[in-house]
């Protein structure tokens, strides 16, 4: 009972945070609301006793990735963004696409549930009961076994994709830097042109 | 010197902190530390008509009790407790202008150690400071910065003018030196000396602590910064007579 009430509270907060994220004109406010949404999602994971996933949700999404976003946004001139028109012609396409995605989610969930449990949507969580988890040696053990035994191939593929992205980013940065290697544009004795001096500073 | 008077009239004059009352360090001995000497005994002071800060001064001179936004006066007991706490946690601005700052550092060092009264936390940001020790001469170019730093300190705030230069410009009655920092900002305590010994500054800080404890400020009844008043008077005068009167030439 308590779990259900808490779930409803966190779900409402999650949705409210998500709506706030896409409606704020101030991008930092939107970003903070996104972090708030992630924290609420983590709370929902917590309610389902998926502690590790909840922690990773906070650590990776709310902690690491969003901080990078905040870093980038802090360097931008927010005033110019706020004056820009926030909605444009693509909104109708976006609307149609989001409805389609929603339909897909519902259809997939419905199909999975139906295949496994008949028509009852109430027991979607399935898989393990708390007793089973305790017998298997705790939440993390079960999670680790699923990740490194059953799902090893997708896990490793994801790692390789991330590694490729990382290496690519490093190569791109290196190339750009090589192109505009700074050379000394004035002799020590000579009077530097004002723009050159400013550049060097 | 006729020239000098015109110049003083031209926006750089001694301000009148208390509306016709004694002004400047020399006329306010009760706020003054004698360099290297102990303060005269309390009896002497009361006998000579000088009173300790916080003793029997006229009500209209001081700002009266602290008021909340609604105009409700803060109960005096709360004010006492707050003042007691504040007096042991006076954090000066980390700000030295000239050679007096060396003596200020000596006071922070291990021989005199102002941390005994919780004053060692010199804040670099004026937002977190409780007051200023104007240590040293202030040049005319520096003066706007001093005023700005003073304004950035949140209320309640206190100012101690340290050294003859900060009090009166010392011997440098020249083109470059502000003749007394009290022409710019309200000053609570004057510590003469060139530079004052750390003991003298320490006694000045003790007097300042006394004022902190009793919630008395130099800006009581003033609430505006003299330099800004000067500016307002200047603008008013300039508006009154359009051709600028008395250009100062060297």
């Amino acid at each position, binding site marked *: 009972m308590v779990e259900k009430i808490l779930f409803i509270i966190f779900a409402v907060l999650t949705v409210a945070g998500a709506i706030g994220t896409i409606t704020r004109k101030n991008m930092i406010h939107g970003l*903070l609301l996104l972090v708030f949404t992630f924290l609420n999602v983590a709370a929902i994971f917590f309610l389902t006793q998926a502690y*590790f996933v909840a922690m990773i949700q906070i650590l990776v999404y*709310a902690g*690491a990735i969003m901080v990078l976003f905040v870093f980038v946004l*802090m360097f931008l001139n927010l005033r110019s963004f706020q004056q820009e028109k926030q909605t444009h012609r693509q909104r109708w396409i976006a609307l149609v696409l989001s409805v389609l995605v929603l339909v897909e989610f519902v259809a997939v969930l419905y199909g999975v549930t139906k295949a496994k449990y008949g028509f009852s949507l109430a027991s979607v969580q399935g898989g393990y009961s708390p007793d089973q988890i305790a017998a298997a040696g*705790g939440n993390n053990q079960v999670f680790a076994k699923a990740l490194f035994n059953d799902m090893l191939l997708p896990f490793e593929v994801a790692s390789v994709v991330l590694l490729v992205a990382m290496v690519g980013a490093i190569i791109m940065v290196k190339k750009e830097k090589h192109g505009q290697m700074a050379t000394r544009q004035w002799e020590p004795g000579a009077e530097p042109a004002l723009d050159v001096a400013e550049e060097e500073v | 010197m006729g020239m000098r008077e015109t110049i003083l009239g031209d926006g750089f004059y001694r301000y009148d902190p208390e509306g016709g009352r004694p002004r400047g360090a020399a006329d306010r001995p009760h706020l003054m530390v004698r360099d290297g000497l102990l303060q005269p005994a309390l009896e002497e002071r009361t006998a000579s008509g000088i009173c300790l800060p916080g003793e029997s001064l006229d009500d209209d001179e001081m700002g009266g009790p602290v008021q909340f936004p609604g105009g409700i006066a803060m109960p005096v007991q709360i004010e006492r407790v707050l003042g007691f706490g504040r007096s042991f946690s006076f954090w000066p601005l980390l700000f030295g202008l000239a050679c007096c700052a060396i003596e200020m550092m000596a006071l922070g060092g*291990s021989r005199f150690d102002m941390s005994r009264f919780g004053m*060692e936390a010199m804040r670099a*940001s004026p937002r977190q400071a409780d007051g200023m020790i104007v240590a040293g001469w202030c040049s005319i170019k520096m003066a706007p910065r001093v005023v700005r730093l003073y304004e950035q300190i949140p209320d309640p705030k206190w100012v101690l003018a340290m050294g003859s230069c900060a009090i009166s410009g010392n011997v440098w009655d020249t083109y470059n030196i502000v003749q007394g920092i009290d022409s710019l900002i309200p000053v609570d305590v004057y510590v003469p000396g060139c530079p004052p010994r750390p003991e003298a500054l320490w006694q000045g800080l003790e007097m300042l602590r006394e004022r902190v404890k009793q919630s008395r400020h130099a800006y009581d009844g003033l609430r505006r910064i003299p330099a800004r008043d000067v500016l307002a008077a200047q603008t008013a005068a300039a508006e009154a007579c359009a051709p600028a009167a008395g250009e100062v030439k060297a």
Partner: protein
Amino acid sequence: MNDAIAQLIFLIIKAALMSILVVTLVAFIIYFERKFAGFFQGRVGPTYLGPAGAFQSFGDIFKLLSKEDIIPAEADKRVFKLAPYVMFIPAFLVMAVLPFGPVGGTPNLFGYRFDYVIANFDSGLVLLLAMGGIAVYGVVLAGWSSNNKFSLLGGLRAGAQMISYELAMGFAVVGVMVMAGSMNMVKIVEGQSGNFWDWYWAPQLVGGIIFFIASLAELNRTPFDLAEAEQELVAGYLTEYSGMRWGLFMFAEYVNLVVVSGIVSTLYFGGWHAPFTVLDFIPGPVWLLIKIMIMVFIYMWVRWTIFRYRYNQLMSMGWKVLLPLSIANLAVTAIVIAIVG
């Protein structure tokens, strides 16, 4: 009264006690810091407010409460007000997973089982890292929302520093996880039962030192307090904060100090275990408190002894020394554990 209600009551009592204890402790730790600073510099420190100046922090609190609260006109007011709390709350949350006594077993209090931990769940150790990640927001947002260039630079510095050192910290912690075979703080402490040479500081010496250095950077304390380098950045991300808002930041910093000291004691110094098994008659919380105070003292010792690093030195140390070292430590630990069992 059934067991669930009893546990709920215990939980509330534990949470309240923990908060009060930490707040009181912090007030005196600030006093200790000033006193130790005095001792390390050949001064005496606060002496007048209270016996030997012991109530110095309360004077500061009175003062900060009565100061004018300034919010700059150009600041982002909501974020400016939010930032201190973002800094403050994660610091307290980590206290929930810190075991300060034995957990589980037979009923020990009024016929009920009293666990000396607020929240006992798997992956409690990850909570430490997750909350470290959230605390970065407090710093970065404080810097950004002040709309001041010094604040922004200070916030960026502090944020970049905390993120960089969190990696090394995480890898160092994984060594302990591998040794204990669990991410549960309670199991980590139970894995260290025995005399003081059975604690994890001996096998995880390198990891422990890395964790200690990284935690200095996480706490933004000297020698890594570049975020508030007065010479360059006025007061860093705190430049525009005045009065009690600034006080909250300061308070959160010291709460973090207590929490990190508790974490170090728990991970590497046996948590609530006595150094010798013969001393087990003294209750666990006392031992943990003693260890926390010793760690706090070591943090202060470092702060007032070592001077500030330059920013590039800080970054190259984090990425080129500590991170590879922590990964190597993890690899060696994993191999040894795999062979020895």
